[in-house]
């Protein structure tokens, strides 16, 4: 792709900025900073991957994947910053949610050992886990705010934290799963996933590409489910203190 074409594609981002400005959404600064950040990060990642792909040490892969989890937790935790320890919760959720399915696929041989496979697929899993965690945390905060009087009514009737928060836990987990569920529903009909497309473009057998892609989709589903569950179950408890009082401030 020509660099000129890449610059022209930025017009689409500028269009979004224009829409935000016209509708007084005040998102212009965040869109500009996010797009510049994405550009910078991808350029640096490109250079780094060239070097990393030459390394074949598991310790270094693990360190890189752990670093990715930390960055993902930093971003995701911010979506629920009203909840105490949201960054730690996001980190644990992302680590567990991505590590277990990823390890499973490594063991069964879907993901081959080696930087060329583990780093991009690890990034994909962690990124997916981050999205699920962000949506779940964000929804949890919104539901607690929205259902505040219902939660306090239940508490005042003698409910435990789990009993009082029951109606906010389920929507948060469900919301975190929505992107993955929608992807599974639409895959092959609305969009052809990147890995499969890349494999076919590179001259691979479409059925092999499909099998590989399916394994990845299943892994991502497992990742989302596990992340949402861990994050939500850890986060809702933090919305209350030891006296069983709602800690989140009224919005």
């Amino acid at each position, binding site marked *: 792709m020509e660099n000129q074409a890449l610059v022209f594609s930025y017009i689409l981002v500028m269009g979004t900025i224009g829409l935000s400005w016209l509708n007084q959404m005040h998102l212009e600064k965040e869109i500009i900073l996010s797009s510049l950040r994405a550009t910078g990060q991808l350029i640096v990642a490109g250079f780094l991957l060239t070097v990393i792909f030459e390394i074949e040490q598991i310790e270094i892969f693990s360190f890189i994947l752990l670093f990715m989890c930390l960055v993902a937790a930093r971003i995701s935790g911010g979506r629920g910053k009203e909840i105490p320890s949201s960054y730690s919760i996001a980190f644990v959720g992302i680590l567990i949610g991505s590590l277990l399915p990823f390890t499973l696929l490594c063991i069964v041989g879907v993901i081959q050992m080696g930087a060329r496979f583990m780093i991009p697929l690890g990034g994909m899993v962690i990124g997916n886990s981050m999205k699920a965690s962000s949506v779940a945390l964000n929804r949890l905060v919104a539901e607690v705010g929205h*259902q505040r009087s219902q939660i306090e009514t239940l508490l005042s009737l003698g*409910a435990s934290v789990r009993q009082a928060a029951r109606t906010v836990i389920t929507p948060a987990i469900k919301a975190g799963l929505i992107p993955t569920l929608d992807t599974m529903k639409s895959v092959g009909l609305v969009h052809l996933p990147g890995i499969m497309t890349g494999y076919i473009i590179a001259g691979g057998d479409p059925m092999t590409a499909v099998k590989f892609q399916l394994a990845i989709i299943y892994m991502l589903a497992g990742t989302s489910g596990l992340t949402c569950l861990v994050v939500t179950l850890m986060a809702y408890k933090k919305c209350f203190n030891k006296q069983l009082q709602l800690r989140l401030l009224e919005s």
Partner: protein
Amino acid sequence: MKPVNSLLKVCGVSFSRDGKFIFKNISFELFAGEILILLGPSGCGKTSLLRCLNRLESVAEGEIFLQGVPISRITSPDLRRRVGMVFQTSADLLGTVEESISVGPSLNQQKISAHAVTSLMEKVGLDTSLRNRKVSGLSTGEHQRLSLAQVLANEPQVLMLDEPTSGLDPTAVLTVENLVQKLNASLKTGILLVTHDINQAVRFNSRTLVLANGEILADGNIQELINSSQNLQLQKFFQGQF
């Protein structure tokens, strides 16, 4: 020596929010079979006080005793069942009227019989034909009665009512006031009723705590307080200057 029938004793309790005192050094006692009116203008800390007694908030200073036991020694769920609170605006719990009334006991792994539900509905003046009606389909007045039945299902020792007649028409207000009087006669609980309406306090003609600017201005029978008010602040309050 503590009075034997003292249910709730509040000693020098203060509460602050965002570093600002909402009320300070509040002390009073609630006895069994008594209706104690907590009268004060909006924003004076009445609801916050009830929330502290129900431990939805924690007090900054002071001690509260329930039947002589410091509430710090009682677990939150147990305390909340024993010191029941009916909110000014109660939340819509999902399900039917019967399910809603059963919530409190079921949270404590206890079942409430159909007969007990009927009895509670009758006690609060809720038409028993509504038992299978969705809570969301109730009127404001019915909703208020349902909230009362919900709290009574836990068999509380202290019943706290936060502005129980707010949003009701004048006839419904009188009906709820009669209901509170009837409950007081039939139950052995102490009732702590919060209101900003002096006329309502007069109608109850009961012991009244006057709360303004986060302090208790007076404690006594409302008629006597009105007639013999020497306190300048209290006079101002009764003249509606708060």
